[in-house]
């Protein structure tokens, strides 16, 4: 009856940030992933936060999702949000070429803030169910992702196609990167010297 105060060891926490132009479906992807729910009506996001426990490759982890605003009005405060991210889902709509072009700016802003070329990053082409309205070809998107040296995945928040895959792939990347950096720290305890060399 007595409530145990001891909390079990919290599973690893991976912080994912959704970026992309307004209306490409960042929130839709997030809500589909979180609650298996597709929101029809559009309401611009300011900044939303979600957290979910999932089993990733047999290990329980928590995925923390920060769903950011796509509208340019909020561009100024993005830097702050990006700093806390460990991985990024850069979303555009395959029916909107402008949103695809905007990914370039988001990519640059992230690299500038994180100062890290190998930050876990996925290029996501959403609204794959609307094939007849496609404006961005798979090849163009693929070419861009190859150029950035990141994976490309096409999703549909409406049909849930590839939704889990996008989040899990990113979480996996974050996880393996954390593991690697931990190993590095262990192998080279003198961190300061390491930094000097770099």
């Amino acid at each position, binding site marked *: 009856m007595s409530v145990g105060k001891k909390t079990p060891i919290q599973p690893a926490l991976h912080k994912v940030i959704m970026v992309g132009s307004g209306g490409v479906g960042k929130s839709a992807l997030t809500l589909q992933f979180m609650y298996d*729910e597709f929101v029809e009506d559009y309401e611009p996001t*300011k900044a939303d*936060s979600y957290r*979910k426990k999932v089993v990733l490759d047999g290990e329980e982890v928590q995925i923390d999702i920060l769903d950011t605003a796509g509208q340019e009005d909020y561009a100024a405060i993005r830097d702050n949000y990006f700093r806390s991210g460990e991985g990024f889902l850069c979303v555009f709509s395959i029916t909107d070429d402008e949103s695809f072009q905007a990914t370039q700016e988001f990519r640059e802003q992230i690299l500038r803030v994180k100062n890290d070329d190998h930050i876990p990053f996925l290029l996501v082409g959403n609204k794959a169910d609307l094939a007849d309205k496609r404006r961005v070809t798979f090849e163009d998107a693929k070419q861009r992702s190859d150029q950035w040296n990141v994976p490309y995945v096409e999703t549909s928040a409406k049909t849930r196609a590839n939704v889990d895959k996008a989040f899990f792939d990113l979480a996996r990347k974050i996880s393996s990167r954390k593991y690697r950096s931990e190993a590095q720290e262990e192998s080279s305890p003198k961190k300061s010297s390491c930094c000097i060399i770099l």
Partner: protein
Amino acid sequence: MSLAPVVTGISPIEGVPGTKVTIRGENLGFCQDDLMGLIICGVDCLMSAEWKSNNKIVTRSGGGIGKGDIIVVTIQGGRGTSTVQFKGLQEAMGPLKESAVWANVGSVLEQVDTLYDLKCVFESDIQEYGRQSTEVLQKAIYKCKEEADKLFEDVLHRKDRADGTRNAINVLKRFRFLFYLPVNTERNIQKGDYDVVINDYARAKSLFGDTQIQLFKKFYSEVEKKIEDLRNILSEQLIKMPTTLEYQKKIIRNLYHLETPGDPAWQCLGAQHAYILHLLMESRDSHLSRELADHDLGANKGSTPGPPVSSSSRNTTPAAKYNKIMMSSVGEWQASAPVRVLLIEDLGDILSTNFPDMWKLSQAYFGGELLPSSAHVDHFKHPECKEMILELLGVFSGIIRGAIIPQTLNPHGAYIRKYHVWPEVPLDQITPWLPQVLRHIRSCYNTLLMLDLPKDAVDVIKTLLFDLRVHCLTSLFQQTVDHLCSLHSREDWRVEVDDEQGGYTHLPQICEGDIIECAQLVKETVLEGGRREPSLLDHPNISKDIGTLIHNVIVAFAQALRKLTLKDPDDPEVEDVPDRSNQENGTTVALPSVEVQFLITLSNCAYMRRVILPRLGESLVRAGYPKAEVIESIEKSSQTYNELQETLFDAYLEERIDPIIGMIERSMYLGQYDWGKVRHTPTEVRSYVKEILLNVSQVHAEVVAVWPGLIPSLIERMVEVIGEEMARLITCVSSFSQNGALQAHIDLAALNLALNNYMSPTAQASFQEAAEALPKLTSEAKRSKENVLRSFHNKMKFLLACFLDLNPVPNGEQMIASI
């Protein structure tokens, strides 16, 4: 609980008070009414909450500032948790905030123009309506308001009431848990579902414990009253004995959960202590009154307590009685056991069944197992608890000591008056039960040992056990001593002859058997300690005592032997010994003569010393008794038997020789015989000599039948006395005629010839003295003496043969010649 609400999503993550917030998660309830609370950053936002689905609630943020959890409370799942946080922002007003006031100068000028227009209109108005124009307006407005109020008063009033009712219904619905709680609590208490009650109470307390609302307060206080009742019920049950440890523990935990003031576990310990104490004393008192009643009854009946027991007890050893007890069925045992043995059995049961629970409870108490995690163990009660345990064990030990071994109670202590309340009882009524008593206490002790008690508590029982064992040891031996002392009554005088060791009756073997039996019993039940009991043998004093006890037991039989023969004027019992033995055996066999009884006892004594004692020594050492002490006591007892043997020997000799000696003089002078007036030449050895020889041979025959080994020393002594008497008689003769002298020479020579084999130097000297007192013989006379002797030898050959059997004597001719 799987139904606890979890908030996993928040949109947006920050905002000023009043921001519309979408909350997503799980188990957020199934309708608006399921929502009992919604707290964002510590501020209740339930008022604006709008339930959308089990996964979604929309609300407006409250005035909370800074980052904080979003907590949803539902009827089904209670208070929930959140994995995401909301950040309440402060509403900032300032020049940086966008505002229309700072638009442009144009609009300002426009306002100035407007103000000017206003002034013109205002001045014309003053001229038209006077300075107090606003007052008129105000009045008009008030009037309008009053009219409006009148119109709507009724409607508004009804609306208020409707709202109130709706509110009340809502409250009732939402908090029906609390309103039903008093009834439910009552019902559950009656059903005994204390866990449910405690759970509900904890929930009510967390929800309404510090409520300010009167209605809630009222119901909550009713619940409190019910809980108080439950506390009282449980407290009563807790101290009601007997009960089980598990049940007590459960009640104690429940009481703690109910936040009962005081220390229920400690109260329970105290109650248990008092209960056991009560059981012990009650058992003692009931047994004591039974015994006292029996005692009075016995006293009224025949004034000798238990005559059948004591009379029969003389013929059975405690070991035999013990065996009989062990063979008897439980019913017989219950009926025949002395009350105090039953008492000890009872006490042992009481302690073994109740004490471990109390100890375990105290362990649990001091281990903190019973207390809620918030309370801390009161270690200051440790000594008090220990005192209670020591008191219990002390009372237990005191009662037993009082009943069985009152001599071990400290005569100056307070205990003696408290426990030494038992009437004196003959030792032999209790003694056979002592091993049984020991077994009970020992099993109790083992039970206590398993509990891992503090050392001084264990020591109370340990010393009790030790004292009991010592008492048992001495009692068993003492009883055996008493028994052996009275063994003489069982002598049947049937002799079995052993060529080497002489004859014996069954008494020595009975004695040996009894001693071994007793030693065996003592060893099995007393000497060999149980678990964590020192062996008594390791104790130097006890070891010495054992030596003494063994000695006493062995010597006791000598007492019996002594009683058989030597009449002791101090002991009146001896007088009727022969009668009793005759009756008890139920035989018509005539008792042997007193002299033969002497002889048999003498032989028994010797047999005891030479055969039984060494064998007994070996048996005792083999049984594990300390060798040095056994050997010492055997040697000491052997000495006692030696002395007894000598005494008996002398007594027997005296008994036998006195008539023979007395006869010599009478027989010598039979018919006015005068050594000085013998006329005819003697042709024969005189008859008094033959009589002497006949008498000696009779004794010889008597001894041979019992103990041939005794003959040399016995006959030798007899010959010495005969020689002495002969020397006295001959030297006293005043004159010898010639023939008289010859006759005397012949007589002396005949005695010499016959008893030659048993002639000691002393006897030889006596005979020499007698011969020298006689006149010398002529050679003719010597010849005739030889003739007479030869014919004597021929005639008496068969009689004399009995004196020769030790050394086959050469030829009679040669012997005569040598004399």
